[in-house]
């Protein structure tokens, strides 16, 4: 059976990657291969990493309030690089109102704090298809 490969990245200037690490660990324990890129990732770094690593999905954890910029930029860059079909998901402190516009732009799933991990797992599997 093909393994799921997922990229987990943490953009922004803040140094908190607890959320990203929790999800990375959880996905590993669920049998995923998780390519972890660490902190302070720019959209360009995230997208070229996704390209080189041939992942099935890209997960982004945001805390810094830059979510609108980061998700929009990543989705656009992925299209430009020919990997627009790879689903993008994310989590962190994203205001409810910002979610629908981001989904419209092509983000496939956004998890707000407190989403049960099982729900996250099921959704990620669903968007990878």
């Amino acid at each position, binding site marked *: 059976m*093909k*393994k799921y*490969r997922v990229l987990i990245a943490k953009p922004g200037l803040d140094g908190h990657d607890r959320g990203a690490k929790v999800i*990375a*660990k959880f*996905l*590993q*324990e*669920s*049998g*995923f*291969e*998780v*390519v*972890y*890129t*660490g902190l302070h*990732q*720019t959209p*360009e*770094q995230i997208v*070229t*990493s996704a*390209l*080189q*690593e*041939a992942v099935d999905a890209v997960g982004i954890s945001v805390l810094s309030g830059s979510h609108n910029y980061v998700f929009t930029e990543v989705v656009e860059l992925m299209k430009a*690089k*020919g*990997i627009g079909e790879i689903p993008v998901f994310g989590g962190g402190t994203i205001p409810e109102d910002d979610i629908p516009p981001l989904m419209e732009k092509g983000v496939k799933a956004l998890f707000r704090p407190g989403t049960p991990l099982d729900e996250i797992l099921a959704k990620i599997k669903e968007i990878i298809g």
Partner: protein
Amino acid sequence: MDYAQEALNGSVLAGARLIRLLEEGDPAGIEGLKKIYPHAGQAFMIGITGPPGAGKSTLVDRIITEFRGRGKKVGVIAIDPSSPFSGGAILGDRVRMQRHATDEGVFVRSMATRGHLGGLSRATFQAALVLDAMGYDIVLVETVGVGQDEVEIVDLAHTTAVVSLPGMGDDIQAMKAGILEIGDIFIVNKADRVGSDDVVRQLQVMLEMRDYSATNWTPPVLKTIASKSEGIIELVDAFLEHRDHLVSTGILDTRVEERELHFFKELVKEMAYEKINTAAGGAKKYAMLTEALKKRETDPYSAAETLMEHLKVDM
């Protein structure tokens, strides 16, 4: 998309997808590999091995910078272990190399061992061939953090660097059994810590006891502080010096030939086994002979001959 052709034309996307196919054991991957094979064989393959946390990824990051400064394109394959329980993995080597993520002359691919023993993953060699054929001048392979038995890297790399660090104490003694044998270059990283000179001395003493007449190469022991980029120029010089040595002595050609032969033999074994399972009555005959062996009605030599006869394969 013809991944092999596109990869040869310089498409990172196609190269990455071809590596993925190979990693998944997809037959389409092997078709691609055949196509790129004539274009491989140019890259200088360097292995970086050593215990967990020794600073391998940090070293690779700085080695990339140095080779880039010298105008070389660099491909990297970084291996991390799969969990034996979930089969999953966190591939974190890349974290240390992200400054190169947007450099078009650098391609980093993380890989999980997926249960493969030996310090590499099953598809590492194939992935290295793809990067080679894509025109990366240097292919750096970081093994999993190893103990002493994971020495498969020597089958792949032209030059193998073994990383150790201060404070290993008796571990250095333990190392000599396995990975000490495979180093062309020894790195004592974290030389900013106390005890690095002790490790250098211990290594030198152990290396002095070895016989280098076969290769005419005495491995240097180099100190580095990867986190401060210290000792990296000397390290890269040593890589190139070893490479020159391999070329001028003809050892490189011999190693490459041996390696091709090794893979050929392995493939023949694999395919012969496959043939047994697919030939008419092959699997049944195989099962019968296995049973007969268990009951001691035959011996392994006769059983193998009988099977070959059945398959009409000349032994």
